[in-house]
């Protein structure tokens, strides 16, 4: 378990992905466990995509949108928040647990916050261990 390196998928809106770029410009160091998939708006994310990531064995998943009230498409991030909450409910219901999924808000100019999120999520998933659906890591246990 000690050398478990989770693979986390992050669905970032265009603007919050900008904060990830900024973290780079600032040379902030964070664990290399996060893979960003960029969306036009966090409101684009569908329940189905999140659930399929769980099914595929993602150890951790997060969705990042603009700060509340600051969505470039006015309310997309609220839609995303609702969907993430719904999927979390489902994950709890099926006994998978909702901790592996999170919604974050980060503004485009806050590289520090992005690095924090990456750290926080990596730490959280490390302590949770591999996804039960992550067969490769799962086999090791």
């Amino acid at each position, binding site marked *: 378990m000690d050398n478990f*390196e989770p*693979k986390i*998928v992050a*669905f970032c809106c*265009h*603007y919050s992905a*900008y904060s*990830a*770029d*900024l*973290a*780079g*410009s600032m*040379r*902030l*160091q*964070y*664990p*290399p466990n996060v*893979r*960003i*998939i960029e*969306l*036009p*708006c966090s*409101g*684009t*994310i*569908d329940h*189905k*995509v999140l659930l*399929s*990531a769980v099914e*595929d*064995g*993602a150890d951790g998943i997060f969705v990042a949108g603009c700060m509340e009230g*600051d969505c*470039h*498409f*006015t*309310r*997309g991030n609220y*839609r995303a928040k609702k*969907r993430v909450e719904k999927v979390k409910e489902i994950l709890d219901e099926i006994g998978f647990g909702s901790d592996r999924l999170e919604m974050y808000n980060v*503004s*485009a*100019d*806050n590289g*520090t*916050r992005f*690095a924090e999120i990456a750290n926080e999520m990596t730490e959280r998933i490390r302590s949770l261990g591999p996804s039960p659906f*992550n*067969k*490769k*890591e799962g086999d090791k246990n």
Partner: protein
Amino acid sequence: MSANKVGAVLVVGGGIAGIQATLDLVESGYYVYLVEQSSTIGGNMSKLDKAFPTDNSSMSILAPKLVEFGSISSIQYFTNTQISEVAGEAGDFKVKLSQTPNTADTKVCTNYVTPVELPNAGQDISGDDNGKSGDFEVNVGAVILCPGGETFEADQIEYLGYNKYPNVVTSIEFERILRTSDKQSVIRPSDNKKVNKIAWIQCVGSRNIRDEKHYCSCVCCMYAIKEAVCAKQYSDDEVDTSIFYMDMRTYGKDFEKYYEEARDDHGVNFIRSRIYAIEETKDGSNNLLIRYGDDKGEIHHEEFDMVVLSVGFKPSDSAVQLGNNLGIKLNDFNFAETTPFTSVNTSKPGIYVAGIFGGPKDIPETVIEASAAAGASEELLSDVRGTMIQEKTYPPEKDVSGEEPRIGVFVCNCGNNIGGVVNVPKVVESAKALPYVVYSQEFLYTCSQDSQEIIKQKIEEHSLNRIIIASCSPRKLKYYFQETIREAGLNRYLFEMVNIRDQCSFVHMNEPEKATEKAKDLVKLSVNKAGNIESLNEAPVNINPKALVIGGGVSGMTNALNLAKQGYQAHIVEKSDRLGGNARRISTDFNNQDVQSYLNQLVDEVNSNTNIQVTTQASVSKVDGYVGNFVTTLSNNEKIEHGVITIAIGGHEYKPNEYLYNEHNAVLTQLELEEEITANNTRVKNAKNIVLIQCVGSREPDRRYCSRICCNKSVKMALQLQEMNPDANIYILYRDMRTYGFNEENYRKARKQGVIFIRYEVDNKPQVQTDGKDLKVTAVDHILGENITIDADIVGLAAAILPPEDGIKLNQIFNLSLSDEGFYRECPFRGSWGFSHKEMRPVDFASEGIFVAGLAQGPKSIDESIAQAKATASREATILNKNSAKSSGIIAVVQREKCAACYTCARLCPFNAPRIINYAAEIEPILCQGCGICAAECPNKAIILQNYSDVIFTNMVDELYREVH
């Protein structure tokens, strides 16, 4: 004016004003030369942390504009360049420029950390090798000056201790401290210790008679508040912040709320006191001691960890020299003077000014003026529009539909920025092994000109039909690379960009192996996606070159006239029986210019212009269609077809229900008093005591905004009244005198000439009483702490400016956004995704093709309304000059057979793009901004966001976790 006009404009200064003017002009069909004396563009704005009042990051507003810049072919820009000589006249200027050497090198990465460096900067006019120094000449029809301003040198005021005590910094230095802070603490210069107590000193270099800088710098109150709130937000520990001020001038839209929130929610202390000495404590702590007197005259000593000097603006020496070279008139403070009722015209025809060089102002106002200056230039040069630009031509697009994907992956080393951490050859090798990848190679700099040629060759050689660039942030270079593949005959949407620098090598510098693994993964994801993307069409839409202007006041008429002079049609719809609006009731502006003669001239011009149609006594009852193709039905059943809409429906004066208004006939509103002054009424002329009460109905819980112009107006009226009757006593009862900018001069003059200013607190307002005949006004003199009573002959109330009466009704038709107060809410910093030209839009709405000008957007002066009306025209011209426009390719599309016409999409879309037609939703491509909210919410999954479908994402996730199964 020259008979041989030139369809090009010279823009001087590469700050936000220069950038905005340039973008407006090129989009409207003019060629632009942009000259910047420093080595980078971005100006003052790039030095800021956040921009008030939205608190959006300054750089994230600016950066997308800079991106566009690199992608437009009809701009040539010169850094390190100055104007040496100007000859000629409006329409045909010959301008000599001189460029100092620079080191632009096409082989150097163009997307490196600082976003203000641009690709192809420094190319010189002769098409010679880049960055050759020397003199050259450009021929332009108009010149727009936006050299910006400098901040006041704080060390000139010795007693503030700047440059003497290390912890006294200027506000601009504090911005840098904020920008580079770790967002957990604010660090002071002397010992890098966290600060817990900071003071701001306002009006440093502004409102300063001693230094002959009498004017107010307009922005310092707001930025001090912003900085104080940021300092609190960026610190984990409690930070105590105090702002020492004379008058709190939060007069702009939404500024008053910002001030109240800072005071009441964030706990920023506001102390009304002018500071005359800052000293260091003697204990060696480098803390600072401020001695100040409070309202009651008591003296306090307070210690702070750091002191920020809110420095004002002044024109730079080089700008003054430029102004003198060009022979334009400068005012007493060396700012460029504008001619009355033009906002942007300098004393020399064909030369316009925008931004701080025309007077201190904030960012949105600067952007408005920049657009207005562009609008004025377009008016001057309308007959040569389009003569200097060449439409870029592309080879025909290859049809790759039905072809199997043939993916090319180009991986960037970025010098050593990527290659120093990520093993690039390994990434290339792993890419080659991925499905559909037929070619992969490494570049030292993918963004260099040579690399573009190689990419084009490889597309040809290997019949590539999907291109992936793995390099840096797509925000700057995506469009650039898309151009390359388009030049090679590929649809620009057959492109993916992976950021293995900012999102990989830069953030995992000490873990090269894991970084390489991550880079491989990111490329793998992108290859997977590339296999599923398709060519997208940008739907063309015809544009009807006509504007509907709602409201026939100064704003509406200025807007229509500017458009008409640019050659477009405008139709003004006015509710009342005649043109003129609120301006009919105003005698002079704040500079004592005659409003009525200007207004009559404007009305005549409007009536005689054949491009303008006017319908009075009518209102809008229905609007159909979308940008480029609106059909509006008026209340008289007239139908108008048009391409854009200007909302200029004005505002109106509040009718007070206090201070005996409506009960005593000598209690008048500002406009009523002004009418009596204009009519030279004897009761006003003979009045011995006249009391003007400020903030009547403004800055109250019901109306949490400042009406902006009333302080200036009362001061102006006081001076007028004094002239009518030098013996009259004139009192102005105020809360904060907000005579911003050069209006401070009038305030100073009024004080000097004996107008009596008495400050009151909102919880202890003046009392107006009557015995049935005479009026008595009682107020507390805050210096004496005693009541004073004035036998007033006339009481003038500075009544609030209210939002347009028809705002809500009209809004039901347009479905736009209104502020809590009822003014139209522009979208100052909003924008659509990708590379559209919309990041900063102070006169635009979220809905395409609809614009706002004048009081309907918020209280403002005539000059400010004129600037906004011209800016609106300029923004509209960017649409109207095109015969047809194109939508983005990344839009949502409906599969009709799956649609149940449930209206979910229509309800949720922020841009009103979906409509239900024949029992199914249709999404209007030109309105769709590609956010995908509808696609995700559609209960039946009938909507797909092109190239961002759920299937694409599910496949990507499957691919990412394939190895674990």
